């Protein structure tokens, strides 16, 4: 009897792995059109140059440095360098590691651990690169498309800076940028 129950429990346990909770989430592949819809916005402007100037003003407000500007193709590429503090989880990791190291070395490694902790409070260096492409849609409308990339570098005390991550920016970045563009469009229209 016990054997049968045990077999039944094993069977239920194995079958439970097929439950929807354990189903592997299939990531929907982002198509070129999906990407374009997030990265593109249409503005009513007199010319491509007007929209380019608006974008340039936003880039200047955001402290970007222009590295490529092509008026014929209406292209702008810019780079921005900024800092970002390390997250609390990362800081906690540093402190735990330092405490463990100090304990394991019976206090002798405290100096090294102190230098290590200092790193927890050194912010990351972030490099944001952005390419803006403006093109005519109709006589009164122009299309602007932006693509951005982010590179995070981690500086270390007494050692070289190392690459932490290179990633595409989140869709929120595009929303924020276009919110600023909307404000700039308003300012331009009001001739402020």
């Amino acid at each position, binding site marked *: 009897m016990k054997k049968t129950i045990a077999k039944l429990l094993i069977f239920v346990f194995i079958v439970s792995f097929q439950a929807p909770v354990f189903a592997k989430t299939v990531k929907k592949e982002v198509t070129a*059109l999906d990407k*374009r819809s997030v990265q593109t916005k249409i503005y009513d402007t007199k010319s491509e140059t007007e929209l380019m100037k608006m974008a340039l003003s936003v880039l200047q407000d955001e402290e970007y440095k222009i590295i490529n500007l092509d008026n*014929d193709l209406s292209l702008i*590429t810019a780079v921005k360098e900024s800092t970002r503090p390390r997250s609390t989880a990362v800081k906690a990791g540093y402190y735990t590691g330092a405490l463990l190291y100090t304990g394991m070395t019976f206090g002798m490694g405290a100096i090294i651990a102190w230098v290590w902790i200092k790193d927890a409070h050194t912010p990351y260096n972030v490099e944001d690169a952005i390419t803006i492409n403006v093109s005519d849609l109709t006589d009164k409308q122009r299309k602007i498309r932006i693509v951005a*990339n982010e*590179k995070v570098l981690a500086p270390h005390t007494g050692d070289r800076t190392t690459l932490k991550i290179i990633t595409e920016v989140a869709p929120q970045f595009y929303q924020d940028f276009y919110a600023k563009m909307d404000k700039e469009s308003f300012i331009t229209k009001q001739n402020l």
Partner: protein
Amino acid sequence: MFKKNILILACLGLIFCPPSYAKQKEASSLEIRQMQTRTYEVKNKKELMEAIVNVLQDRDYLINESNYNLGVVSGYKESKEKVFMGQQYVRYETSVQINELGGKSYKVRTNFLKKLIDLTGTPTTKKEIKNPEEFYREFFSQLDKSLFIEKQGI
């Protein structure tokens, strides 16, 4: 004993002689050019160049150099790639060049470079692009699609 030796040799032969170990013939410069070049018929140069910029943007490239008169667009992309037992950061660099063939015909030539990014974030070692033929075919297929999308005004 003799049979055993033959069996071992046969096994080794099967392991080390499959087609995957065959030395691949290096493509000639003409073959490389063919792979990298396509001819397009468009209304004007600007339409084609805008389509190229859009394809590069679709592929998450950032444009670091462009010249309309010379018909050149250069861009790069830095991303993460999965490798055996881990991941690595790579940088793809590209240059696209457009030449007018006469009438509405334009020749587009592109080349891609792949570089490894080291721990400090600097691109260093040059790496071979796996299956370059398919890589370039995919680029030109995207360019076809981009030209179609641009024509439809999407």
